[in-house]
């Protein structure tokens, strides 16, 4: 995200000021050429007035207090928020001849330069409200991210509109734009194919069904949890699954592109296409994550390169979210994921994280969302594969065929998503394949 540039607050002549100056210079030329001393006064009025006006606006800086509010403060991408501003004159002089323009983030449409009504002097006692003006406008936020809105640009002109200066008033305020969430059908959550975790979930929904309490013994399960009746019935070792009751977990691994990659020239400069794919990946992750959370999963959402820690500094340390309220946190954290800013974190993240399998853990559903992964990322995913069941990789069109091949070889279920509207269909298809595989 580019920082707002600090504009120099030098006064600039308006078109009228330039015109007057040109007329003045021409008149000075005429008067010197024909030796008309009298006209010289007017010529210099033409030359001097814009300069005096510029000095005037440079010296007379308004003192303004600006309050800004957003309603709502967190906006889904594509929606608009109402920005309310209260501009108060803190100076002892009337402020007139000003116009305002709010600095909107790139891509959002702020209202054009609009006149600011005259503001009376600051009323320290007996405030009647004549020293403040209230401005409201709607700001449509097309893109996900955290965007600073403001500071307010206040342009002041001299009384004759010959020169003007633009100054910042107040500070910028951030508005959080969360990724769009595509509602997904419930297919996956009800599918019986998902290992233990989902069974536990379903048993919580149906506490009386005795059958589903037990599961087959896996290496590492403590013996005290062996469910003997079930073992007797089934003829193989079964264990109780109390701990996971009501606490199924799922993983979402997001591929956050980092700049520090070698080998692929295309990565040195991020193309708008890659950015777009990354946005799509974030939307997929958000949709899947919210879907899972809504269906009772505890969710861990991390990046691939740094899969032990949360997505950002504000995210939970291990990147786990749970209901209630988890979906808002997830969306906000996803809103803050910034591919460019992530680069800095990438190095230490890579150094710290080795690819470890969590063999001890139960296998959980794993969803990898890939926009532009390197082969190292793919290798990490391959290494993580054993801890996931099912393991589904959503890939966008920019993912290279090498990576895709690696994942397929490692038995990842690779699903291509080209646009958000594909997602629901892809989701349903996964569910049915998963069911078929399981059956």
């Amino acid at each position, binding site marked *: 995200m580019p920082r707002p540039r600090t504009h120099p607050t030098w006064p600039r002549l308006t*078109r*009228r000021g*330039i*015109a*007057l100056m040109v*007329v003045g210079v021409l*008149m000075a030329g005429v*008067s*010197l*050429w*024909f*030796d*008309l*001393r*009298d*006209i*010289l*006064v*007017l*010529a*210099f*009025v033409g*030359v*001097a*007035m814009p*300069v*005096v*006006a510029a000095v*005037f606006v440079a010296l*007379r800086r308004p003192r303004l207090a600006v309050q800004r509010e957003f309603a709502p403060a967190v906006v889904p991408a594509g929606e608009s928020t109402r920005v309310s501003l209260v501009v108060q004159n803190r100076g002892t*002089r*009337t402020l*007139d*001849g000003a116009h305002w323009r709010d600095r909107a983030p790139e891509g959002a*449409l702020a*209202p*054009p*330069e*609009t*006149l*600011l*009504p*005259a503001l*009376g*002097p600051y009323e320290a006692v007996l405030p*009647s*409200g*004549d020293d*403040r*003006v*209230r*401005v*409201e*406008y709607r700001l449509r936020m*097309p893109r996900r991210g955290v965007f600073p809105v403001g500071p307010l640009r206040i342009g002041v002109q*001299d*009384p*004759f*509109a*010959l020169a003007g200066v633009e100054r910042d008033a107040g500070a910028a305020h951030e508005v959080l734009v969360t990724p769009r969430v595509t509602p997904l059908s419930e297919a996956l959550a009800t599918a019986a194919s998902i290992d233990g975790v989902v069974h536990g979930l379903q048993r919580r929904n149906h506490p009386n069904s005795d059958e589903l309490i037990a599961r087959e013994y896996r290496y590492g399960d403590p013996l005290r949890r062996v469910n003997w009746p079930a073992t007797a019935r089934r003829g193989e070792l079964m264990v109780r699954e109390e701990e996971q009751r009501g606490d199924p977990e799922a993983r979402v691994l997001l591929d956050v592109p980092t700049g520090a990659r070698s080998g692929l020239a295309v990565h040195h400069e991020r193309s708008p296409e890659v950015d777009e794919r990354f946005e799509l990946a974030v939307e997929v992750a958000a949709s899947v994550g919210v879907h899972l959370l809504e269906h009772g999963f505890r969710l861990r959402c991390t990046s691939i390169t740094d899969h032990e820690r949360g997505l950002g500094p504000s995210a939970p340390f291990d990147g786990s979210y749970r209901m209630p309220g988890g979906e808002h946190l997830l969306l906000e954290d996803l809103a803050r994921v910034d591919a460019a800013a992530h680069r800095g974190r990438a190095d230490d993240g890579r150094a710290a994280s080795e690819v470890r399998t969590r063999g001890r853990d139960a296998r959980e559903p794993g969803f990898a969302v890939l926009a532009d992964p390197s082969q190292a990322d793919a290798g990490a995913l391959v290494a993580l594969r054993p801890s996931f069941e099912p393991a589904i990789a959503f890939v966008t069109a920019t993912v290279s065929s090498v990576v895709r091949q690696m994942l397929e070889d490692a038995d990842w279920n690779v699903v291509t998503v080209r646009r958000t509207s594909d997602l629901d269909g892809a989701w349903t298809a996964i569910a049915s394949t998963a069911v078929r595989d399981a059956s």
Partner: protein
Amino acid sequence: MHPDQPVLTAAQRLGLTAASFVLMATAIMALGPLIASSAWWWLCAFVSAGVLFAGAGLRALRVRGALVPLLEAVVLLMLLTLLFGGSTSLLFLVPTPETFGLFGELFSGAQRTIAQQSVPAVTVPALSFALALGVGVLSILLDILVQVARRPAFAAVPVIVPLLIPGFIVETGVGLPVLVLVAASYLLLLRVDVRVNRSARFELDRDDGIATVTAPRRVPVASTLGASLGVAGVGIVVASMLAASTPSISSSLLLGTGSQSTLFARGVSPFIDLGKDLRRPEPRPAFRYLARDGDRPNFTLLTLDRFEGDVWSVADRPVDGDNTVDAMGAPVGLEAEVETSEHPIEVLVNEVRTTWLPVPYPSTRIDGLQGSWFWDDESLTVRSADTNTAGQRYEVTRLEVEPTVEQLRGAGSSAGIDGRYLELPEEIPEIIPATAASLASGSGSAYDTAVAIQAFLRSPEFAYSTEAPVEGGYDGGGFEVIGSFLEQKQGYCVHFASTMAVLAREAGIPSRISIGYTSGSPTTERVDGVQRVEVDSHDLHAWPELYFEGVGWVPFEPTPGRGSVPAYSRPGAGQSPTSVLPTGPASTTAPSGRPDLDPDRGFAGPASDPFTNSGSWRVVALLLGVAALLSIPALTRVLQRAMRHRRIRRGDRSADAAWQEFVATAADLGIGIASGTPRAIASSVAGRPAFRDPDTSAAMLRLRDAVERARFGPDDVVEPPPQARHALADDLRAVRRAMLHDAGARDRLAAALLPRSLVERVVRVPGVRAGGGA
């Protein structure tokens, strides 16, 4: 930048109009030093107010913006009819063809009065007409700039016109108070415009609903007054200081030779012109007159009384508006003891065309003149402010002064006369004081000296010749010339007259030179028993007049063979009436002795319009001006095209710019429809033969697609990259080439000279727009 311009309310427009009027009214004040009295200012202010407020009224009635200036011109015409049309108009307001004839006369009269009058000028009707017309036209121009174009900063352009004029005519130019007032009212106009613009845009912003602005209920407006006054005051003071501290760069430094003196001549000696005219062949009739009792006076046109540099010239005195010719002033220095008698003379001028009226000196009254004529205080010469002598018929009452020799000889010291009649330059050729001393030594009184000088010049040593001075290189009336003349002893009336005048001044007698006509040749024709006398260009003459206390200005005749020697000035006059030197009779001698004159050119010198001398140059300038005027639309169009290409290059709504240019080109050539959606326009031109070529057609479609994408695509669509813009410009050029190729030669010419797209642009201008910038 707002796409739609705010519409001003009637009150806002009235405010702008009032500020414009104040500016115009103060600007006309600058003409104050040039014109006597102040009635003209009220007239100009009335015309300006009429035009400007009529415009405001029309706009309040929601007349289309482009029509208002035209209607203002109509109002100006009606005002002029009301003020100057008199009985020729219908209902005092509606002009008739006669009114236009009258206006034409007034206008040419105004040109003459501007050429002839010196400052401060008298407001003759013609001058008032010119002022009213000029102010009216400037007011319309001001109104267009302020209200239609909404660029009040450029109001300085029409306003500067009246401010420039005085600087060219009077040395001091416009006074500082007026300039400060003009600057202040200009700033007032800018301030009013800013306020009007703000409130209009505020309404617009409120209406378009992009942002809701809740303004405070009341705000002290007066508190911004201090800032306005402060900025304006500081600006004006700084400007005055800068102007005062700027060194004067004289025009001669810049131009090599002063262009002013040739373009704006003031006080040029008529002598050189006279000399040229004296050498022309073919006499031409000047005027004729009827005088009873054999009265044969000299007719004075103008009087030269001072040295300008090295030559004689006429003092540049302004016309005094009170000196009307129905009661002329008394001759200077004439006292009651001197015998006088009045003689009426009827004069009919047929061909001579000067601004100076031939009248005998001294005269008491003149009747029957056309136009405005005024007499000068001392010389009693009569000149016109707005017309000339052509075709004039008038009756002049001449005062014949008949001093006796005793009165002349007894005249005391000439203390009562202005010192300038005795002024001589510091350095004069040695021969002049020597000659004067030798002539003055033998005589007692001033009168005797004068008679001696005249006798010296009329002696046989001196010969009359119009050619010798030119061959000898001493033509004119300057001191070097007089010195040479005294040695060569050959010359014509100019030399004799100026020599006598200089010698008289050297001897302490006030003198001046009159230029005019001698008494002419009597014809056999009689009117009512009075002999008619014809005066032609042969009778053009110059003679000295000397001043004697108690008698006044007395003419002498030093030129041999010309004019008549006055009785009082003959040597020995008054002593023995019988001893009389041979008198040079009126208009005698051989034709070769009479100078040939071209009266048309005779005395136009002192205040002639410099342009009349160079007719061909004027034609060329006129043609150039007309060509420049005609090429304005073409230049505007070329400029517009360049601006749009620049927009394409710089990516400032490039697709729009390309499409506008394409539509304008099509409109210029009369192809397709001028307005509509891009798709409609594209399909309307697609059938043209120019677009049969698939490349051209594809280029046009690319232009169309680009503009559609820009106009109807998502709001945040970015400008195409430079290569795409470049391609856009190339497409535009290709399409334009094809369309030009397709059109006929006539259409192409019309498209170049009178681009129709400009007209449509003007017609589409809505009533009044609030401007953005200037």
